[in-house]
């Protein structure tokens, strides 16, 4: 993985103070502990809500073991696209879509596809942390139990493992059975991440997952993403360009429901091909 080289000095300052980025894992280490391949590919996706054409001819591919940031002005369809990946969008009134989304070579729009299987593959992190109305422990085991893990000892192991993975173990190990809502908002968001990881997904979908958090918690989550990309394909919808600059490996720029440009982060940020992208990066609209 290449280090970013910021040709534009003003933009370079955006990424100040995030030295942890330099701890990037090198590729050789990645290949070692990874044998599954996560694959997500969208072809000709069109999505309508009632009469509104929300996503227009979207085609894209999400690389594995990378952080893909979806950027674009608000209302351009980022959240909608993300929710289409795990078909949470189905619950929207007046929804219609065509095209296909391939997840590990299965079309998720296919009638034969089990929707819960698709969702199990995608951990979701929403804008505001949303702990389930139960204890910290039960939040983590919720998904595992749904998928048939009943063994108490195994469940306890998973809880410890996942809480450690998100750096929450030391903070909560003495009150695992306290309601999750008692945690601070930053802790809640990490808990939600751990809860998602516990069902062993392949993808992590995050929709502006740090926008409700304070800067420290926010940074904590970003660090986790960087850490986690060795095992997952991470797709972030991000509200700030700065965040994308800091952690994106791959960038998708959307505008008015269309994918305008997609590619490696350094290319998009330093050398955008499209005029619209350039304007957006220069802050012409937001």
């Amino acid at each position: 993985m290449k280090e970013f080289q910021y040709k534009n000095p003003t933009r370079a300052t955006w990424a100040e103070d995030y030295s942890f980025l330099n701890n990037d894992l090198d590729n050789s280490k990645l290949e070692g502990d990874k044998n599954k391949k996560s694959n997500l590919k969208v072809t000709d996706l069109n999505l309508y809500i009632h009469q509104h054409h929300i996503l227009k001819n979207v085609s894209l591919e999400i690389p594995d073991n990378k952080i893909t940031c979806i950027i674009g002005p608000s209302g351009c369809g980022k959240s909608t696209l993300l929710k289409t990946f795990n078909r949470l969008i189905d619950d929207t009134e007046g929804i219609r879509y065509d095209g296909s989304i391939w997840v590990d070579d299965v079309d998720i729009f296919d009638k034969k596809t089990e929707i819960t299987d698709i969702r199990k593959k995608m951990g979701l992190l929403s804008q505001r942390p949303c702990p389930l109305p139960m204890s910290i422990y039960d939040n983590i085991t919720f998904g595992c139990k749904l998928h048939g893990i009943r063994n108490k000892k195994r469940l306890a192991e998973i809880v410890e493992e996942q809480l450690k993975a998100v750096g929450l173990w030391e903070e909560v190990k003495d009150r695992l059975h306290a309601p999750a809502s008692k945690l601070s908002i930053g802790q809640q968001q990490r808990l939600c991440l751990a809860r998602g990881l516990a069902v062993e997904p392949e993808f992590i979908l995050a929709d502006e997952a740090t926008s409700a958090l304070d800067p420290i918690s926010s940074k904590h989550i970003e660090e986790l993403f960087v850490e986690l990309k060795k095992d997952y394909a991470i797709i972030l919808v991000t509200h700030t360009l700065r965040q994308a600059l800091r952690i994106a490996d791959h960038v998708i720029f959307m505008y008015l429901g269309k994918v305008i440009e997609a590619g490696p982060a350094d290319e998009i940020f330093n050398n955008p091909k499209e005029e619209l992208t350039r304007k957006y990066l220069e802050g012409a609209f937001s």
Partner: protein
Amino acid sequence: MNRILKNKIAAGMMFSLTLASISLVVLIGMGLYLKSAPIFKEHSLWELISSADWQPSSGKFGFLPFIGGTLWITGIAVILALPVALLTSIFLSEHSKPYVKKWIFPALDILAGIPSVVYGVWGILLVVPWVSEVLAPHFVEYATGYSTLSGGIVLGVMILPLLISLFVEIFAAVPRDLRDAALSLGATRWQTSKLVILRKTLPGLLAAVMLAISRAFGETIAVLMVCGNIPLLPHSLFDSCYPLPALIANNYGEMLSVPMYESALMLAAFFLFIVVLIFNTSSRAVIYKLERKFQ
């Protein structure tokens, strides 16, 4: 006039209105108590509520049959209505298509708006014969159908629309993010409703049930039309019973020449008042606790 003064006046007015409505409750309670006080000169409270002997003309005022009848009927109504209301409202809010809701909500409003006496007539025409001819023969030798069970069924149907619309409202208040969180972990819709939505809304659901119970306690006309009105403690679902509100409605204004009779009826009203009051406050305490537990 400046803004601060306006605010102060508005706040003061709202405060005095609140105070007025609270004192109204206190006044009603006191009025009922004072009116019923004479009976305590001759009987102790314990005697009144524990005795099943109701013979006003010989000065015997045992309220047990009425209290028992009220509890039976309300209990049956809630037991019958609660599962139906829960399943219906889960279906409506979590599983049904929007156009189904569009049809069912007006229907519920109509049901809720039907005057109580119409439910009573429906009870006499359908429920009472059904209990007496179809159900009762399996269990007892003879039953008129004017029974505790009929009262409970009619009352259950009456509180059903209230329960369903309260429940649906409560489910609608659950943020979509919470559903999405459960669904995205691979839960089915039913698992989401059962394990997350119900749990999240438990305090609200409980409050709704309490509200329905308070209403059921006081429901009078429809129940008195089908429950037989015999002042004996019911021993089976097919026995007649005589709930407290029916006692008051049937007898107030008549037989007031009998000594202490008015006082006794006032005491019945006072009982109702106290029961509803206790129910409301204790339910609030429960809800408060639960809310703190699950947030």
